[in-house]
């Protein structure tokens, strides 16, 4: 594992990452994929296609909303943005992630 620069990400985590990226501003699917790659310094690289079921699932849940508008290249693209509930959800997930991470860190520190 240590040698590998890529590892598969659990579904819930992907949702959280997508929400996080979109909280910075609206983006289309390709943009999100690029962004993910840059943000995680290539460590997290999902199969790009699997991004779309996640986007649609989040949209169905009402955490994302979408609209078609022209992208930077001038072509029409579907842009996603975070809804209010989506924002709350992200906050809640961040919090619980923080708690989990802190707890895990504490346990690791203790063992040191």
């Amino acid at each position, binding site marked *: 594992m240590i040698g590998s620069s890529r590892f598969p990400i659990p579904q819930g985590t992907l949702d959280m990452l997508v929400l996080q990226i979109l909280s910075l501003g609206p983006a*289309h*699917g*390709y943009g999100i*994929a690029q962004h993910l790659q840059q943000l995680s310094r290539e460590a997290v690289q999902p*199969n*790009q*296609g*699997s991004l*779309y*079921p996640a986007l*649609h*699932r989040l949209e*169905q*849940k*009402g955490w994302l909303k979408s609209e*078609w508008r022209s*992208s930077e*290249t001038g*072509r*029409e*693209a*579907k842009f996603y943005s975070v809804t209010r*509930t989506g924002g*709350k*959800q992200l906050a*809640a997930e961040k919090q619980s992630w923080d708690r989990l991470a802190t707890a895990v860190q504490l346990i690791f520190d203790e063992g040191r």
Partner: protein
Amino acid sequence: MRKLWNLIRGKRMEDELERELRYHLERRVADLRESGLSEPEAHRQAAVEFGGVTQVQEEVRDTWVWCWLRDLRQDLRFSRRILSAHPGFTATAVLSLALGIGANTAIFSFMDSILLRSLPVGDPESLVRFAWRTRQDEVHGMNRHDDSYLDAKTGYTGGFFAYPAFELFQRNSALFSSVIGYQGAGDLNLSVAGQAEVAKTEYVAGDYFRGLGVAPAAGRLIGSDDDRGGAPRVAVISFALSERRFGGRAGRAGQPVLINNLPFTVIGVAPPGFFGVDPAMAPDLYVPMHTQGLWEPSARGPAAGGRFIDPDFDWVDMMARLRSGVTLERAQAVLDPQFAEFERTVTKVRSRDDLASPIVLDGARGLDGLRRTYSKPLYVLLALVGLILAIACANVANLLLARAASRRREIAVRLSMGAGRVRVVRQLLTESVMLATMGGGLGVGLAVWSIRGITLLLGLHADLNWRVLAAAAALSIGTGILLGLAPALQATRVDLAPALKESRSGDRRTRAGLSRALAVAQIGFTLLILVATGLFARTLSNLESIELGFNRENVLTFGINAAQAGHRAPEIATFYEDLRTQFAAIPGVRSASLSQIPLLGEGRYMTMVGVPGAKPKGSLIMNVGADFFSTMAIPILLGRGIDERDRADAAMTAVVNRTLAKEWFGDQNPVGRRLTVSDCPKCEIEVVGLCGDARYGRLKEQFPPTAYFSFAQWPVEGMTYEMRTAGNPLGYAPAVREILHRADGRIPMADVRTQRSLIDGLINREIAFARLCTAFALLALGIACVGLYGTMSYNVARRTGEIGVRIALGAQRWMSRGWCCGKRCCWSRQESGSASSFFWRTRALRQA
């Protein structure tokens, strides 16, 4: 809802998804080419990075459908778990709804089949029916079912016409494509392969089936050639009879049968669901109109066969089918002068200044006798069952309310864990719709069962049909949504923090008001139904205690028709009289007599009666034998009754009742005065006696003017014997049969009844409605009790902890019991009472 919408606009979403994915791939290819890859290489690389496009599309589609279905499945599973976790609650709610919906579906089925449904014939919209109207009560001929009635405003309406009038209508072929004549024949004796049974029979004119547009289920139906004097004797049977007696299709047409001991051939079977033109009648057997002379020459009317030419004897019931383009108004306009001419020139007995005028009515629903008789009671019943449903709904609402209160905490937890408000409301709604659906399903089952019961009780016919089922479904789902919505919305409008901190008991203050109102409404509705039941029962007891003018107890009645066995005048009168003396001699028989029909139970005969030189008026008439008045215990006030002296060759005599005497002779002694009767214009009839008023034909009207004649002095057909007996009248039937068999073995003894059961038959409907109402009242009471008990026990169960604390603090057990009971008894004082007790207790605690 949005997900459902997604499913519907699937096509657009597919297109958008495809565009979205294509955009991604093309951007990637472009980027890769910019970084120096060749075109095919870039395509390959992009495809590898992306993964299978089809697979991604599949997965996305899954999220559309599955999100929705998964939520639904979760809701359903969760609802089921919740409901089965509280079996008492679920049972109470489902049972309440089932009873409410079941009763409503049953009554609605009857309304549908009696008030709303059209005749089961082709193109019912073009059917019309006829009636006539005069200013006063005037009947010549039959008045067999409730088709004629007197209305204070419109005058007298009659539904029967003379045969020549029927022919007159038939001649209007420019208006009508066919004119349909028919007449109920009552119960005839049908014998198939040696097995006899009573069959409800209808006389039908030749055009009946063709005109109604009915196709046979087997064989052929009666046509014009079958309905004329001397034609071969044929009959058509109903589908139900064919199934019952002939076992389905085999050998129905061409089957020889005996009808009233005369050979007939069954030529065909009417289609299933065809009940004739009157939903109340539903005949088993149809025979041509002209066969009527074979066994039912009218006793008072013209001689057998003569009624087909007599313009003054009304007996044909009529409908017609309008030609296309002909309106009711046009038909009315054409018929008016024709019928007026007929009345003026052809009829003889109708009073010249009050001739009947015809009315053309919409005939799509058949005869309205049944509708007129049953519509009001049915609306009353519908109101009752509506109230029952309201009680049931109040039950469920109260239960759901109490539960929503107790679930505030649970809902608060779910909301705080991130469940959407809509999602929670939806879950609660699913729960109540599930309850309603279960209630509705069970209710339809109950309805099927109770329709059968009511059919037996009222003798009406109804089926559970799709319309009724839809109404029940709408009712139950609507109830569910209505009931689910209020508590659901209330429950989610929760301030989370206090709700989470709240103890398990929930806050009762907010819901106490609504819950109390519901309970009070329930009790109120139940009371209302009980009062209505009381009224029905009161009506029934009034009817049962109505003054008859004769003694109904211990009277055996039965019919004997010697004319059918070939006895003719004048011998037939002697035959009947001989039988009477023999019956009177049976040990235990106090006296025996005979009359055309029983006083109550088989209708009545009417004609115009007057005194010489005055315009006659409509009155009831009855031909009786010797000892009639003593047998029926009708008092003779002056003179004598009809007796053995009033033979065919003696001077014609009559006995009049008090009302008739008052009408014609005032306070003077009627004995020795003369009467005229329109049936026999030349006869001079002497009044020999005055008798007390007695009910005849109908129970509920004023005592009608009635004249009694000696049967021997008028044309004689079948007669009804009355025997006053010691002890149970039916016990004497074997002795009678024995005597009759010895006198003439060909004559059967028909309609063996008691006068009492005949009268009960008249008030059948009232008895049935009183019983139904009682059943409904019990139902309402039951539902209300179950509901109140359910709500109360639920509340108490939820507060077990509180009660425990009270007892621990020193309250006696009886105090808590009293607290629970008192709450139920004086509901209105609950709030103040328990509040003050709480106050008192907390103070005591603080002091301690």
